[in-house]
């Protein structure tokens, strides 16, 4: 199948061709009959110039439109996207029309990343605190032991 770029050029060229065909010499001469009667050769020459200039100017302008809009590049890119999606039967996602809702989806990957990061950090902190708690409990045990030893000394003196 023709590419989008080819299709674009083809339809534009076709319109131009048909327009040129419509503006035939016979039609031109028929409209400018009074001048044609006076100078038929000049009329032919003017018509030829008219056709030539019309085609050249329109082609130049269309080329400018294509360059300005980067149409060739965009058409190629779109053809590639269409090709990549050829096995996709379901309609693809489209903006809902409510930007704040659509923006939520765009934020989801960052939120999920942050969620994962927080889970990891929390796990590390819980582990650190577990070790700290073990040290604290050991310290409390030692203090209790020291208290008991002091109590035993006191009772002995008593």
């Amino acid at each position, binding site marked *: 199948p023709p590419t989008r770029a080819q299709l674009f050029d083809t339809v534009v060229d076709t319109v131009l061709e048909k327009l040129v065909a419509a503006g035939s010499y016979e039609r031109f001469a028929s409209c400018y009959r009074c001048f044609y009667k006076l100078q038929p050769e000049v009329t032919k020459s003017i018509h030829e110039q008219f056709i030539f200039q019309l085609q050249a100017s329109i082609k130049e302008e269309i080329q400018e439109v294509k360059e300005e809009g980067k149409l060739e590049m965009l058409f190629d890119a779109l053809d590639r996207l269409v090709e990549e999606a050829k096995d996709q039967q379901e309609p693809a996602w489209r903006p809902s029309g409510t930007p704040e809702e659509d923006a939520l989806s765009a934020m989801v990957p960052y939120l999920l990343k942050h969620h994962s990061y927080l889970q990891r950090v929390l796990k590390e902190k*819980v582990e650190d*605190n*577990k070790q*700290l*708690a073990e040290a*604290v*409990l050991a310290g*409390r045990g030692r*203090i209790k032991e020291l*208290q008991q030893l*002091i*109590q035993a000394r*006191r009772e002995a*003196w*008593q």
Partner: protein
Amino acid sequence: QEHLQTSQAEVLSSKPNYQQILDEQGEVLSFMQLVLEELQQAVKLLQ
């Protein structure tokens, strides 16, 4: 109060009163002072 909802809430909420523990040792030392003074007096008397 935030730490009361953490993984070590039980450990944190059972923290002993360390100031009280130190205060109690003051009592022990006061008691020992009395004991030694008593002992000193008793030995002087026996001597």
